């Protein structure tokens, strides 16, 4: 039996990773805000794009990983996969919320409106709604195994819906041509400095996502252990094999 504070302590490598994120983040901000050149059309506003697009990309990756860990849980039934799915899902929700905020910040000065029915923005809004649904379902089921299975199913359905939602939103928009331009630079040739800045920002955003996810999964494992120990205590006798081992 481990001591409680011992259990809660972040391992050294995770702490080192977290500390390393600070200079990386500052470097990404410097590249985006100072080093990269101004855009021909958008001037300094292009600098919003680095933070916005990198966060959006990682948000989509996070949703995909949530579904992937969910599928692994359905396949192998290991509690660890469910814990990872939740950790990734929470980060996906955070990153898509940040994407919407970033998108609105970006489109107010460039397109003169907070909200356009741009396909990507619409898709992100739907993604937030879908992820909130995922967490509502989780909150309503007490049995950990059933909770893991049902929420894994929801995550898979959600991830499968994203391409359809994107297609529908994209076609919907082309019927109503708006003033939206390709915001992520698709079809627009980017200066190499810009591309490098965007990729650097994306990598840093990915590392931030991964750090929070790993740390959240660490807490999730402790939670799961606690839940299992409580269940054992309520049952009275402690089965030697342990009901849920993580």
């Amino acid at each position: 039996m481990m001591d409680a504070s011992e259990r809660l302590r972040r391992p050294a490598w995770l702490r080192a990773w977290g500390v390393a994120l600070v200079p990386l983040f500052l470097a990404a901000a410097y590249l985006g805000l100072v080093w990269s050149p101004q855009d021909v059309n958008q001037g300094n506003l292009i600098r919003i794009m680095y933070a916005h697009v990198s966060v959006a990309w990682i948000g989509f990756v996070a949703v995909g990983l949530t579904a992937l860990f969910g599928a692994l849980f359905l396949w192998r039934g290991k509690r660890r996969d469910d814990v990872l799915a939740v950790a990734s899902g929470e980060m996906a929700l955070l990153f898509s919320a940040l994407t919407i905020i970033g998108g609105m910040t970006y489109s107010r000065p460039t397109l003169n409106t907070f909200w356009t029915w741009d396909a990507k923005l619409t898709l992100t809004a739907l993604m937030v709604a879908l992820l909130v649904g995922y967490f509502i379902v989780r909150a309503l089921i007490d049995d950990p195994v059933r909770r893991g299975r049902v929420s894994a199913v929801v995550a898979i359905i959600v991830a499968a819906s994203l391409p359809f939602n994107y297609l529908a939103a994209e076609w919907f928009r082309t019927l109503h041509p708006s003033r939206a331009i390709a915001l992520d630079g698709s079809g627009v040739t980017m200066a190499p400095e810009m591309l490098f800045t965007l990729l650097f920002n994306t990598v840093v955003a990915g590392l931030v996502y991964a750090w929070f996810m790993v740390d959240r999964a660490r807490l999730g494992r402790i939670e799961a252990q606690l839940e299992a120990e409580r269940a054992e205590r309520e049952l009275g006798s402690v089965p030697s094999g342990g009901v849920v081992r993580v």
Partner: protein
Amino acid sequence: MNDLLAVLWVARKDLLHETRSKATTVATLFFSAVTLVVLAFAIGQDESLLRGAATGALWVALAFAGVISAAQSYQADLEDGAFDHLLTTPVPRAAVYVGKLLANWLFMLLLGLLMLPVTFVLYGAAWPTAWPWLLATLALGTLGFALIAVFYAGLTANLRARESLLPVLMFPIVVPILLASVRASGALVGSDDLALAQGWLRLLVGFDLVYAVLCTAIYHFVVEE
């Protein structure tokens, strides 16, 4: 072969229950008619606006009614623990899903066929020349909707607050279905633009295929116990 029979028996059971109790029929029929009227009030008296909104209103009415019908189809089963008995029968859980899907789809299709003339009269829209394509849109759209509705209704049947939870969970998923159905039927009714409608129908077919496979494959994780 046996599984196919099981599918048909589950569908038959649901439809038989409905023809005898008529609870869902009465509720959804009047509910969708009332929705059409209320939406017409909301849009106002401008005739061209009304005509343009006809297909959108029809699909909104069908979507709301579809949620009720899917939730009801489990509600009737859950009373007296009949659903547990259904699950103990030695057939794959997927057969239960497909059977319920079949019953709900037929129900929604019938409801759509009944609401179609009502919409055309209330909203003053013209019957399109390519009307078989309108029926195809109705069939594919209600199928996609029923796929998701029956799946999520099974998922929420045992949860607290299921009435409010079901639409919250499923509407973001069926957005492409609603968009494609509204756009396809709008293209047919408004402008007789067959090519545009067929583009949207392709999206419907793709959605239906993907979710038919996916939902059938993972349904048994949803209804255990």
